[in-house]
């Protein structure tokens, strides 16, 4: 889906599935990533994000399917796997630092690759400076804060100059005040080193903020829409057409969905129109509600609206000011049946 004509994907998955205890947890007919881009894998907890990056980083062997690295199929033997795995690196959701100094932790990948010890100091210094931890080389790893541990783990991955860097929920242990700075560091790594970055997150806005491409994953599958405005319920029929009953509200869905069965739908926040008065349009889904929360981020404003169900809506700052909206404002949210995606 991300393949650009004439370019060989850096990493490609074909017909990959993975099972845990006979239960399918991942089903990826095709997924590819290109060199030098940032990819965000988003989805709720348990959606298969971590399994996906573990397979991409060759930590897990998929139950079925093939992986291709720079156009060549990855063989199953230990030597081939190790060779390719050494051109990638990954930080875990809860990174583990070895019980030694920061410097020795960061040097680990260099030791594994047999890089001469005389070259270590400059490489380690460069990596630590890039993540903003210059001067911390002698500190004991176990004395660091959660955010510092995450940064050391990234520096440890950087020293080996990986072609692809996988970051599993990298902001999970980072203080909210430092998230922006942390994202800057990741963006700089991609910009300065041209490292492909694949990060998992359940924070959709984070993924959209700095990823070039977003892979929304739900129940182990790539889904066409994003993970906000995700509703559980059932498809039902009526004389006016099919609708999705969440138990609280009814959401009109396209006619072609009537024969399908799904218990989940989602609505893209950008497809929802906000108005103070009922909006005159052909859109069939319209709900009156109250703004519960307003979050401004990078020229966009995200509204959390209680309208039977909780909707997340994204509008421009200009629209937000023009409509004179605020927390507790009464508004209408309107969207077309075609904006609804079955999951």
């Amino acid at each position, binding site marked *: 889906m991300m393949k650009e004509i004439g370019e060989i994907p850096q990493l490609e998955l074909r017909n990959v599935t993975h099972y845990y205890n006979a239960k399918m947890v991942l089903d990826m007919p095709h997924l590819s990533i290109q060199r030098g881009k940032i990819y965000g894998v988003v989805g709720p907890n348990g959606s298969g994000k971590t399994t996906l990056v573990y397979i991409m*980083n060759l*930590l897990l062997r998929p139950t079925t399917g093939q992986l291709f690295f720079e156009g060549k199929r990855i063989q199953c033997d*230990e030597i081939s796997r*190790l060779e390719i*795995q*050494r051109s990638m*690196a*990954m*930080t*875990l959701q*809860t*990174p*583990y630092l*070895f*019980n*030694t100094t920061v410097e020795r932790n960061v040097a*680990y*990948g260099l*030791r*594994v*690759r047999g890089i001469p010890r005389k070259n270590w100091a400059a490489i380690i210094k460069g990596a630590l400076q890039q993540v903003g931890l210059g001067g911390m080389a002698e500190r*004991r790893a176990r004395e660091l804060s959660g955010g510092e541990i995450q940064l050391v783990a990234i520096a*440890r*991955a950087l020293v*080996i100059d990986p072609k692809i860097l*996988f970051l599993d929920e990298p902001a999970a242990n980072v203080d909210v005040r430092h998230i922006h700075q942390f994202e800057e560091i990741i963006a700089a790594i991609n910009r300065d080193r041209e490292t492909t970055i694949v990060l998992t997150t359940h924070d959709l806005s984070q993924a959209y903020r700095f990823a070039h491409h977003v892979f929304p994953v739900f129940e182990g599958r790539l889904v066409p829409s994003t993970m906000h405005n995700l509703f559980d319920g059932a498809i039902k029929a009526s004389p006016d057409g099919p609708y999705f009953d969440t138990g609280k509200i009814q959401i009109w869905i396209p006619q072609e969905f009537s024969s399908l069965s799904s218990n989940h739908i989602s609505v893209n926040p950008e497809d929802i129109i906000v108005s103070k008065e009922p909006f005159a349009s052909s859109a069939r889904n319209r709900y009156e509600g109250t703004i519960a929360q307003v979050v401004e981020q990078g020229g966009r404003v995200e509204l959390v609206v209680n309208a039977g169900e909780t909707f997340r809506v994204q509008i421009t700052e200009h629209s937000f000011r023009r409509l004179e909206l605020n927390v507790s404002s009464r508004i209408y949210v309107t969207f077309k049946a075609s904006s609804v995606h079955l999951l």
Partner: protein
Amino acid sequence: MEYLFEAFGDSINLIFSFEGEIYGIVGRSLFFALTATLMAALCGVPIGFLVGTKRFRGKSGLLTLMNTLMALPTVVIGLLAYGFLSRRAPLGFLNLLFTPGAVIVGEFILSLPIIANLTVSAVQAVDPRAILTAKTLGAGRAMMAWTILMEARFSLLAAIIAGFGRAVSEVGSAMMLGGNIRSYTRTMTTAIALETSKGEFGFGLALGFFLLLVVFSINIFFHFLQVKGRQ
């Protein structure tokens, strides 16, 4: 109580007497115990590592056996080893019986299960993320094994100290296999047993204090290494 104080005073006198025979016994005891511990560590740590990290059929049975071996009385070890090392026994051709080598073999057999068992516990206590992290950084099997051992190093050191404690303090097998030969296989423990049997309780107790002091000093040294490593 006075008797104990006297023995303690005698042990201090013994230490400062710089008598060749006493220091010979202490030196020999340490040499036997350290050699046996080193050999047991070289075998026990890999055995413990493999048992602790691999899955295989009969693993729980093997662990039970290893735990049982930890409780084996030293005389039983002495008897078994005697059975193998005596002149007409399968290993009689080695001519080890009543030599320092036999004492070391006995102490090795006693230390091995302790070090192996405690190594199993040590490697199983390592955070599973350590192995995953090593893998994400491209470590091969050997490097991953080394990483696990390094993460468990303080517990491994404790295992080796426990093995040394067992070796240096045992008397049964040293007596049976070494024969308590003066200036050759006599160790602190066999000397204590001999002096006590002769009715020289004070001297035996003094040697006992000396033994405690030596072991205490060695443990202080190991503890210092652990503390330094953690800093």
